[in-house]
């Protein structure tokens, strides 16, 4: 296994970490409309992710920075090619971050309601758009001989990619719902479990179709195995949720995300962005990667820094392990 293969795996790990972590906080954002019955419950939801959403988002920045360093051609093609969808995601992430931080900084109801509306939409849209983006990456896009994207923004909105978007949206919402059941106490916890069943079933059907489509179109043995794990863990997550085993339900919905992302990257390899115009014009781990020297330095960085990050981020979750209910929110209308 050469260094550029190692880095393909590491980039996959970073995206997986991002979808696992921000997946549930996007989901919680969506739940502010889907689950919360009043404003106090909205605040309970927002505060379950309060201390951690920012750290979760850094997985995306790191995936971006690491792709720049390890696969400059991939970074350049992907982000210039998917210009407008990425712009939409960036706008959402900007507004979303400000919404979390500023919502409680004024008592006026209008002010708070506006930010709550923002949290819902800016969680829902990226959760959908990332699926669209990855659908297109896996399936391939119109790249010319210079690895420039020559398609239009409408080409990106093809049925397969749109289905991918629905899968990430529903899967993240499910992930967020089981997270809510795990992190809250009281009435909202019970309702979260009930909602998880519904959302989970929808996610399961969509994911099954999307992953099967992927497997038939470009899968191999390894991707089939990941496919199996994804489906099995999603079913098991639903079972655990029904049995009231909230920790297991969350872990298993996380495994589903990990397996599904792994499956997409397995079907992608050794390409990083296939060209639908000519296979010769596809970006691969070889022609997109940095020099061995840069990859060596980056590997040292990853080997030393990643375990530390996992350690102190894990510690954060432990510090804030207590469940939150409406009684923990200082002033319900504030």
């Amino acid at each position, binding site marked *: 296994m050469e260094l550029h293969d190692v880095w393909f795996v590491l980039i996959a790990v970073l995206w997986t970490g991002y979808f696992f972590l921000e997946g549930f906080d996007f989901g919680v954002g969506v739940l502010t409309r889907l689950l919360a019955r009043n404003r106090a419950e909205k605040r309970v939801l927002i*505060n379950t992710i*309060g201390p951690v959403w*920012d750290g979760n988002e850094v997985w995306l920045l790191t995936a971006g920075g690491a792709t720049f360093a390890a696969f400059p051609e991939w970074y350049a093609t*992907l982000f210039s090619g998917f210009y407008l969808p990425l712009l939409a995601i960036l706008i959402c992430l900007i507004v979303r971050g400000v919404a979390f*931080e*500023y919502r409680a900084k004024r008592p006026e109801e209008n002010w708070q309601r506006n930010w709550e509306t923002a949290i819902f939409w800016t969680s829902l849209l990226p959760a959908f758009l990332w699926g669209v983006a990855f659908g297109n990456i896996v399936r391939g896009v119109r790249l010319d001989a210079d690895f420039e994207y020559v398609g239009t923004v409408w080409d990106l909105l093809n049925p397969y990619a749109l289905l991918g978007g629905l899968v990430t949206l529903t899967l993240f919402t499910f992930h967020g719902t089981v997270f809510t059941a795990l992190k809250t106490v009281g009435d909202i916890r019970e309702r979260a479990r009930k909602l998880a069943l519904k959302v989970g079933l929808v996610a399961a059907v969509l994911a099954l179709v999307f992953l099967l489509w992927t497997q038939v179109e470009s899968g191999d043995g390894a991707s089939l195995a990941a496919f199996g794990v994804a489906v099995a863990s999603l079913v098991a997550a639903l079972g655990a949720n029904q049995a009231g085993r909230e920790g297991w339900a969350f872990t298993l919905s996380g495994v589903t995300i990990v397996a599904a992302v792994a499956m997409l990257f397995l079907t992608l390899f050794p390409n990083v962005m296939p060209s639908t115009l000519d296979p010769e014009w596809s970006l691969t781990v070889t022609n997109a990667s940095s020099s061995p020297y*840069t990859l060596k330095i980056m590997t040292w960085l990853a080997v030393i820094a990643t375990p530390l990050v996992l350690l102190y981020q894990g510690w954060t979750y432990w510090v*804030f392990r207590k469940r939150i209910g409406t*009684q923990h929110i200082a002033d319900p209308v504030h």
Partner: protein
Amino acid sequence: MDLALAPETLARWQFGITTVYHFLFVPLTISLAALVAGLQTAWVRTEKEKYLRATKFWGKLFLINIAMGVVTGIVQEFQFGMNWSDYSRFVGDVFGAPLAFEALIAFFFESTFIGLWIFGWDRLPKKIHLACIWMVSIGTLLSAYFILAANSWMQHPVGYRINGEKGRAELTDFWLVLTQNTTLNQVFHSFSAAFLTGGAFMVGIAAFHLMRKKHIPVMRTSLRLGLVTLAVGGLFTAISGDTLGKVMYEQQPMKMAAAEALWDGEEPAPFSVFAYGDVDKGHNEVALEIPGLLSFLAHSDFESYVPGINDTNEALQEKFGPGDYKPIVPVAYWGFRWMIGFGMASFSLGLLGLWLTRKKFLLPAAYRTGEDEVPRLVLLKRPLGSRLTRLYWLAAVWTMAFPLIANAWGWIFTEMGRQPWVVYGVMRTEDAVSPGVSQAEVITSMTVFTLLYAVLAVIEVRLLVKYVKAGPPELSDSDLNPPTKLGGDVRDADKPMAFSY
């Protein structure tokens, strides 16, 4: 194509707008993180309530500010790929590494520990909670360091080779990129300027309250801390500005010649105070100059030769082939002056304030004030009258934003002064832009960013004003009795959270 609408021009405008805007928040974040950490340390060590109230007050302003810094920073991580894809392809092997280091080391640090600090008041023991804000501070400094190393490589590329076969620059010595003199001087200069900015911010707000005789113990402490930060930051900004200038005279003589609108080399060279030039004819029509000073700034003596714009342009043409290697001279010239002028105006205000509010040194005993009194401003032997005192407080309030203007012009100067290069001597800006991104797309994104940023600026400033006016918060029981166990004490299980969104 019309140059004004060329993809390169539009992409540059967008980069300029988003980056200058982002950098309004960065220096305040860097300095306030450290200052808040310092205040909280004082609280933990002395248990004086004024320090905790100061920590909460400045901490709140810090959080309002860092939220904007973080979200506008996301754009920066992706903008190279979006709008500068040919740049990314050509330099990613070198330039990507410090960005990845920044993300994996600094961003995770900042974002994780800021969450722990915000929500940790009733979940973490006192000293661990304090450690969190120090971690945030370290994160902000590391982040700035790595991105400045990346920028320094654009100013003065080192530790790389050109791979002709792959048509790109490749890293050969990462350590050199991190430690070359351009990096060290830029880091020194940016860090000092960050503290100059934070000091001026603190002094201005403390002056606002002291003028109204409100929140005196907290604001008195803040004033002192702000003045010392401002004066020390200002001093180091001036020193590092001088050393960075000397480095730039060696590495980018054109930038520095443009900064002086020095069209033809002179020996000794004067420093220009005011000039009005004719760019087409290549000389100044009006000039007010201090003889010999430029020679000193460039080479530490008052006699030596400093090359001018026209000489340097010829030298560059000989080296890189025909073309025009001049940046936009008025922008470089005035950017340089505004940077120094606004920065040093704040520095002077800090020095003056430090003298006026001295506690004992050469101060008649009758005018010394206690902790609950507004400090008296004493020039020599007698206090200033009420009008002059008020004037000083007002000046502090009104010049609070001067360092922000100086920072912005500093970056505009250093980036526009490097043109036509994006990587000096290696890659031209016109070759760096994304070929596949259309005019319409860039106009769309630029418009969206500009409008969104404008709206957010209004929201942010209003929030800051609200919390500045509210003053330091009263302390509650749970503030004064932090938990002893990680995750919070059992007795508090059903109490409302000390902080919630």
